């Protein structure tokens, strides 16, 4: 890692983090949930994600504070968010994210979403309190295969353990179609512990897959 620098994300990384969120949501497809579920085009959705990141909320995935990035020669090439669920706040990351989206996207988008929310119920995975949650991984294509994800995961685990000595588990959620990410997580010691599947295939108009895996890594 001689020319690589792993660091906490900051405000200047917002455009890369928004791209990270978009690419991770798309999971290798063209289905970008922040666009499809909220009736926004891709550019508008990206701008709204940038706005959400600017709010500097702590304790969920749409937070600069949660992201760690890797720089190569002064350019950010990888990012991954992580936070300990309901550690900094009592309010769950799900509700924080929900407040952020509702506040930023506005009434019309939420009304559009209202008609779709039932589709998501079956693949909605509850996050376990006091576990390290990882979400939104993106590595620029030309920097893949260099074990940058391992570095990001290890740093997240080490930092989380320094904050919370009793940390026992790391969880990550991944769409079934994202075999690349699943392999990387398996190589990092994660195992698939639960499968969530929606039988309603209409979901494929909005999301990359109708199946999601919960993957876990136990810590000693």
């Amino acid at each position, binding site marked *: 890692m001689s020319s690589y620098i792993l660091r906490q994300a900051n405000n200047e990384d917002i455009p890369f983090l928004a791209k990270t969120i978009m690419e991770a949501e798309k999971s290798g497809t063209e289905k970008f949930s922040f666009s499809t579920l909220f009736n926004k085009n891709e550019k508008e959705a990206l701008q709204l994600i940038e706005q959400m990141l600017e709010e500097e909320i702590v304790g969920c995935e749409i937070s600069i504070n949660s992201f760690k990035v890797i720089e190569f020669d002064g350019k950010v090439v990888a990012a991954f968010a992580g936070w300990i669920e309901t550690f900094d706040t009592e*309010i769950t990351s799900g509700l924080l994210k929900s407040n952020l989206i*509702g506040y930023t996207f506005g*009434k019309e988008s939420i009304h559009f979403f209202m008609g779709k929310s039932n589709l*998501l119920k079956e693949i909605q995975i509850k996050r376990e309190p006091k576990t390290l949650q990882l979400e939104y991984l993106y590595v620029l294509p030309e920097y893949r295969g260099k074990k940058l994800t391992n570095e990001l995961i290890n740093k997240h685990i080490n930092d989380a353990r320094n904050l919370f000595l009793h940390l026992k588990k790391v969880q990550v959620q991944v769409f079934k179609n994202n075999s690349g990410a699943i392999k990387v997580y398996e190589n990092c010691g994660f195992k698939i512990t639960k499968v969530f599947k929606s039988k309603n295939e209409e979901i494929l108009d909005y999301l990359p897959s109708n199946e999601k895996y919960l993957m876990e890594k136990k810590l000693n």
Partner: protein
Amino acid sequence: MNRSEILEKIGIILTSVLGHDNFELQENLSAKDVDGWDSLTHMIIITEIEAKFEVRFKLKELNKLNNMGNLLDLVSNKLAEK
């Protein structure tokens, strides 16, 4: 509008968004006590409350909400500011 009128109106919104009224509408009710009040429906519930009372919440205010009592305080303050 007094507190119990606000509460009653919120109750109607909850019932309509969640599709049931299996909850005790009281001050210490929180999202986790109510079937189906999750991150998906929360967004809708809050948006409906804003529309019904014609108020707009700040993000900081939303992130401080722990229970129905907090929500009632917030709505009555917003109404008083109008």
